[in-house]
């Protein structure tokens, strides 16, 4: 699909194309496409994501100020199971009003602490692999030191307690 030829075209630059879709969720719903034909989020370069995120925020503010909405949703549907229907990557900016008939609430899964821990460990492994931290935050290092210290202190306390009759 080519967002540039959409009748609801609002603006375009070298990174992005903003369009009023023909089938909006609510009147004023804006779809912000990448100007380049990327399909999924993972293909979009960080610099483009940054620009599009800032634009999505600006569009959100425009909807607040000029379409009298009381809230907005910003949603990325990444992949067909996630609801993506266009072959071009996009962000949805959806104005929300009272009784607009939309409901984006989900029912939480009931997961045990064990399940959550398994998910956490698996995700942590990949998060560490993927996210390149330009400079590891000093705060993390400090926190790590602190945790080690607390842990040792706890052990010390436990030992003390065990020694007591």
């Amino acid at each position: 699909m080519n967002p540039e030829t959409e009748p609801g075209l609002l603006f375009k630059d070298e990174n992005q194309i903003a369009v009023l879709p023909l089938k909006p969720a609510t009147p004023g719903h804006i779809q912000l496409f990448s100007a380049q034909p990327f399909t999924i989020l993972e293909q979009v370069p960080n610099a483009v994501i940054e620009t599009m995120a800032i634009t999505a925020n600006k569009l959100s503010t425009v909807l607040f100020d000029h379409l009298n909405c009381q809230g907005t949703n910003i949603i990325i549907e990444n992949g067909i199971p996630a609801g993506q229907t266009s072959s071009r990557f996009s962000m949805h900016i959806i104005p929300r009003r009272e009784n607009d008939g939309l409901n984006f609430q989900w029912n939480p899964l009931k997961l045990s602490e064990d399940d959550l821990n398994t998910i956490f460990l698996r995700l942590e492994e990949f998060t560490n692999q993927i996210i390149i931290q330009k400079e590891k935050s000093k705060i993390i290092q400090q926190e790590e030191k602190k945790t080690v210290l607390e842990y040792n202190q706890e052990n010390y306390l436990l030992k003390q307690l065990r020694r007591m009759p």
Partner: protein
Amino acid sequence: MQPTEEELKKMSPEQLLELQKQNCIFCKIIAGEIPSKKLYQDEHCVAVLDINPASEGHVLLLPKDHYQILPQMPEEVIARMFVVAKELSHAILKAFNAKGTNIFVANGAIAGQRAPHFMIHVFQRKQDDGILTIPAKPISEKDLMTLKNHLLPFVGGEKQQVLDEKKDAQQFIEDKKELDAEIQEEKEEKKEETKQVVQLKKEKKSEKKKKRKQKIEDDFDKFDKKEKEMDDEEEEIEKEEKTIALDLDKIGDLFA
């Protein structure tokens, strides 16, 4: 100590924000005062596992500073957070061999925001899991153009002949809302009417029944009355006959 309602009213927006911050669970999570499953953090944001997840692999990405909604945040933080959201999505895809993710932001309670601390949700999606769907409702070309012309001046779009349709766009939204409300009202009214008709029919039926019953009762009464009248008449006749007979006897006596 929590301030009274009176004190709350007197507070400046800055003071209110400060109070909100002090009570904010997510600020406490970020500060490490409440335990959490922290996946990532940098100078701008912190990612934790959502313990009430929409799906297996649901991450909350929070700005380190307390902001309620996106428009309050510095662009630097917004830009960084969406890049991290992208990386988290990538991690979820790889970790769970997933085929889809949603990145979801709710700005304002009406949009489904539950906590006063801004956050970006990143979670796994599976086919037909029913977690989230953006509805698609067709809009007429005229309405689309009205909205477009209304928004163009504010988005710095290509210079076009922009008509003064600012009011029209808002009018359109109001009209649509009104129309929806009217349709709903009509539906309710019809329901109500149907109910009333049924009630009326019932009433009519019972009325007829009552009338029929009344008529039968009346007829019975009439019959009784008539019977009584006839009885009375007969009695009268009998009496008369007796009198006549008596008279005849008297006359006979005279001739005797």
